């Protein structure tokens, strides 16, 4: 009970928001390329599982991170095969991959349930982390929490300041025009899925290697879906995703802090908060965001075949 409530929430918001932010950044890239990947939930789960297994086998959490990123990227290629090559429905394909991941990770991870590993190191920035209030919140964390802002900036840079990003956004707005302009829409979409999958995998790995520190079947429990919703809230802008992730992380941290303080409110009701908040936020801020949606996505959200 030594940490004050507000400080606990603030620090927890960053810790809980980390996995969501990486997932959301990955989804921003994928959606900018004109695809909606509900399989992000599965992608993050794959990252959590493979990252944990690799860490347990090698004893090095950073090798675990690499494994998680690769696993996420490769996993998303399956989505690419379905929706890019075979033109299957995106929403159904995404959910199929979520199931795929649930089953795959249950098998791969079954001998690792309950194992303890040396997860990501917590770093204390010298001097800065001793500052009252701000220090423990902002200057203590692991590689991925410190990487949140740089990663969002990197995604922003890649999307808006590189030729690849321009091509990718062109494909997302209008495949036909992109093709006519000499681009290879399919190749670019696969690339977007790979990069997005790597980020999703890292997000998942943060759950198993830092946040929880263990592997549990189905441990993402909807965080991937929250991340997808967050992308709409962030109107497909990587930098706005940071604010969104902190908001949702804050909701999770808020209810955890309340629970730790032994309130009389049922934990089950408190657990609803992040999901309800997501809906509320989408309702209040998401309404006029549809006009900022990449054109290629409107068909996904409005079609059923």
């Amino acid at each position, binding site marked *: 009970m030594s940490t004050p409530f507000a400080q606990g929430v603030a620090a927890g918001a960053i810790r809980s928001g980390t996995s969501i932010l990486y997932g959301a950044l990955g989804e921003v890239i994928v959606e900018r390329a004109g695809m909606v990947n509900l399989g992000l939930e599965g992608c993050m789960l794959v990252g959590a599982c493979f990252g944990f297994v690799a860490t347990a086998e090698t004893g090095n959490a950073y090798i675990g991170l690499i494994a998680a990123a690769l696993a996420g990227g490769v996993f998303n290629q399956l989505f690419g095969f379905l929706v890019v090559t075979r*033109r299957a429905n995106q929403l159904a394909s995404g959910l199929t991959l979520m199931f795929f991941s649930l*089953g795959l990770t*249950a098998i791969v991870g079954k001998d690792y349930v309950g194992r303890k590993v040396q997860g990501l190191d917590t770093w204390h920035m010298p001097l800065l982390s001793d500052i009252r209030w701000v220090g423990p919140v902002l200057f203590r964390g692991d590689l991925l929490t410190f990487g949140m802002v740089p990663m969002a900036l990197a995604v922003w840079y890649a999307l808006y300041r590189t030729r690849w990003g321009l091509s990718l956004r062109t494909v997302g707005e209008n495949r036909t025009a992109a093709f006519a302009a000499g681009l*290879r829409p399919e190749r670019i979409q696969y690339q977007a899925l790979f990069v997005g999958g790597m980020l999703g995998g890292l997000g998942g790995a943060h759950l198993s290697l830092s946040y929880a520190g263990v592997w549990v079947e189905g441990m993402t429990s909807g965080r991937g879906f929250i991340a997808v919703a967050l992308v709409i809230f962030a109107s497909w802008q990587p930098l706005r995703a940071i604010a969104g992730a902190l908001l949702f992380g804050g909701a999770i941290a808020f209810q955890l802090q309340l629970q730790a303080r032994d309130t009389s409110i049922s934990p*089950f009701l408190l657990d609803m908060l992040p999901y309800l908040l997501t809906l509320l936020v989408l*309702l209040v801020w998401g*309404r006029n965001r549809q006009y900022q949606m990449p054109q290629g996505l409107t*068909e996904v959200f*409005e079609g059923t075949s």
Partner: protein
Amino acid sequence: MAAANPSSPLPGVVAPRRLALPSLAEPARFVVAVLAALTVFGVILLLQGENPLVAYRDIFDTTLRTKYGFSEVIVRMIPLLLCALAVAIPARIGLVNVGGEGQLYIGAWASSWVALTFTGLPAPVMLPMMFLSAVIGGAAWALTPALLRAKGWLNETISTLLLNYVAILFVQYFVYGSWKDPQSANFPQSRTFVHAAQLPTFGDYRVHWGIIFGLVGAGVLFFIFRFTRWGYEMRAIGGNAEAARRSGIPIATYIVMALLAGGAMAGIAGFGEVSAIQGRLRPSVSPGYGFIGFLASWLAGHNPLTIVFMTFVLAVLTAGGDSLQINQGLPFSSVNLLMALTLFAVLALRSKPGGERL
């Protein structure tokens, strides 16, 4: 990968067929898809040190070989069928209801509320009341997404998806809290329902009235979609919403009604599970029937009659999960992998008419 294949980069242009497979008839393709999935899953079993042939024989023996096994497949098929119909109705007008799981939980909760509150009622009153409350509960859970979508404020895909988690927590709140059976020490579950609240099953099997609800529902929906004005107008909305609106079809009404009807279907599935199968409310009413039903409906092209067949196949796989758990010592959820591989193969093999969307 095929990404580099330049044959069909343009939406709206029919690609030359790349594989011979897509030219096969639909049923043949489905068989190929299932075989492909079984092969890949078999390799994964091999890597786990299990003999896939033994595992498949065990699944076959425990599902289709005996009368009891077959009845257990039907038991799984009931909620899948109802949840798939919950997806198919809104899908006719272009809506994506991913909330079947949550609607099922609320249906289960609502009928449990009747069963636990009005314990003195005779079965002929009790069961219809439970049924009705499940219908209302499931529909009510779909109401918010429906209204938001009808107003054009929020896409129903995300809202129904997120409400699933809320619904499950909602049920847990009661089962761990005020509804917890004081006699079941550490097991969070409600009291057992009185006998009148238990939906009758057929013979010595667990197959219950839900199968009638599901099959009749599928038949009625097929009729409505195919032969009535409602079906015609729904098809018009699904085809071109803007044109339908201009020709005076009340789109907002259809949006709300279709989602409510879907929610009601999933609610009935929840009623069947608590009333006939579990006889009480437990925190885990369903191992993902809502999601599997979603996929079944997509695989069936939202055709109610095809859905009956698809849910049967997926029910065999779901029941096979028990066998994998008991005989091979694999986690129950590993069956999700087999199911996903089947869906993956079907989605990948399905030939789509030219001009499909992205």
